[in-house]
């Protein structure tokens, strides 16, 4: 069983690795968007899927990362890829500051507060806060990323940059899922009171996972800014948060393959429905309802944790 899934993932990886050779730039760009949303979905999955926190304002952290990169790059000329940790830091810090007083709120209260933070940030960006965000037109002229002196500008070059980032994300988040931290966060989601009773500081873990997810979205924002070279407040509206949220829940909350599949569906389906023109979003909305009814837990839900039974000889000594 384990071997079979390894073959499937290996096959998908091999196909994706050579895909740009056979696709025209338009479809490579679609795949780039899938990759970017997959990274965002995975970062939100930590918050919504693993910790069960109701975050409908994830685009705000994405925006903080993108604007950090854009401002520092256009004003001081710092290369965008060097800014990755800075973007993570600013987005994480922003998330920490806003989440600290509200993280203990009941689920649905947290939902409206995260929506509110997203809207406040968007309005602040439009109103040109501190005179550095460029107002409704945003910031343009962000430079292309360079890797060892090689400038990345074509879609298929970005494909490998985003692909690498996505692979690193998948690897790290997979490790995180199976770590002590991941188990603790899942426990808090399942039963906060019981988790507290077992000595897990629930607020601490919730805050940590919120900040981590936000920081990751900030890094995705950096890549986004470098890819677009122009960013504006409207790229980070409520709709973006809805898409990220739906990717997680519809794909399968708490499950990495589920979130990846969700990103493919959410970015890919509108492309397929392109022929319907104006009715595209109508069909999209109906599809969301239908898919949720058919697969209430998401398409590929998180599998229950399994542990091998300890050998009879060393029972009790299981690490």
């Amino acid at each position, binding site marked *: 069983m384990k071997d079979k899934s390894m073959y499937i993932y290996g096959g998908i990886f091999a196909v994706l690795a050579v895909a740009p050779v056979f696709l025209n730039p338009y479809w490579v760009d679609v795949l780039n968007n899938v990759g970017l949303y997959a990274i965002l979905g995975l970062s939100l999955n930590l918050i919504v899927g693993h910790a069960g926190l109701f975050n409908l304002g994830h685009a705000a952290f994405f925006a903080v990362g993108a604007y950090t990169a854009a401002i520092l790059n256009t004003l001081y000329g710092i290369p965008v890829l060097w800014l990755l940790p800075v973007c993570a830091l600013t987005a994480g810090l922003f998330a920490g500051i806003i989440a600290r007083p509200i993280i203990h709120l009941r*689920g649905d*209260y947290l939902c*409206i507060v995260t929506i*509110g933070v997203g809207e406040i940030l968007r309005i602040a960006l439009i109103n040109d806060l501190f005179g550095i965000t460029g107002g409704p037109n945003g910031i343009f002229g962000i430079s292309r990323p360079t890797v060892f002196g090689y400038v990345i500008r074509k879609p298929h070059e970005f494909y490998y940059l985003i692909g690498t980032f996505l692979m690193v994300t998948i690897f790290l988040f997979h490790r995180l899922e199976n770590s002590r931290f991941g188990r603790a966060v899942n426990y808090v989601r399942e039963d906060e009171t019981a988790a507290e009773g077992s000595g897990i500081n629930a607020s601490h873990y919730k805050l940590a996972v919120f900040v981590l997810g936000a920081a990751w979205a900030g890094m995705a924002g950096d890549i986004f800014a470098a890819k677009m070279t122009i960013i504006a407040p409207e790229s980070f509206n409520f709709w973006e948060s809805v898409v990220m949220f739906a990717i997680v829940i519809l794909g399968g909350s708490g499950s990495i393959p589920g979130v990846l599949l969700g990103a493919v569906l959410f970015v890919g389906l509108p492309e397929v429905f392109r022929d319907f023109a104006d009715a595209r*979003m109508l069909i*999209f909305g109906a599809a*969301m309802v239908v898919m*949720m009814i058919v697969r209430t837990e*998401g398409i590929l839900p998180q599998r229950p944790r399994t542990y091998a039974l300890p050998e009879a000889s060393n029972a009790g000594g299981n690490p």
Partner: protein
Amino acid sequence: MEEFFQQLTNGLAVGSIYALIALGYTMVYGVLKLINFAHGDLFTIGAYLGMTLLASFALHETIGPFLGLIVLALMVMGLVAILGAIVERTAYRPLRESPRLSAVVSALGASIFLQNAVMLIYGARFQVYPEDLIPETSIDLFGLYIPVVRILVLFVSLALMAALFIFIQKTRIGTAIRAAAIDQDAARLMGIDVNRVILLVFLIGPALGGAAGLLVGLQYGQINFTMGWTYGMKAFTAAILGGIGNIPGAMLGGLILGVIEALGSAYISIAWKDAIAFFVLILILIVRPTGLLGERVADKI
């Protein structure tokens, strides 16, 4: 000082509209613990239906403006209520037993569907209500000139809220709704048909939302297919502000939010108008985590 009172009455009128919509959110949340994201779009549909019915029947010309508006409001409320029940049947009932966030995605899907349906039917541009409906005069109230339409909006929404309050508090069906909101299983054991209560809530909430849509159309004259999102979010904020699930809380939250927003955009900055509501919300939730009238829910162990 006159400016202040003008903004105050304006804020109360807008706030009463928020309160009407907020009631739909809070009632649905009360019985289902679900945020009905499609509610804002039902409100939009109310506004559009009002416009269509006005144009096609011209009731205000045949049976007089006063009676005409009442009949119009009843028709809009009835139609939107039926639509609300259909949304519940198709998008929410199949997900009653599933994880709550799944139902939220279904609600968001329903919202996208309805919003785009309105856009496809009426077009993406702003639509205009007929102008000669309500006389554009102002009434002199202690030296303060208040437009008739503002008084109408305030009066109608307060009347609807009072009717709902009496219905919920004094009738048997209202008691059943309150019981189902407290504990569905216990209510079922007491012989209450919870499915019918939920259906009823999905008729009353959208009916009030539809009425609010009509009032917005009458007051501002302009409607757009995306307005459900702005009004819906403000109303949801109002519901949370008052303590979600709490009916008087939604009314109070709506009025407070409307007044703060009107005063804030007049005296602080109009550019930040849409952000003020959320600032107030965050501040209040930090001080009172369950909203103004919300009760503290004990954790069950």
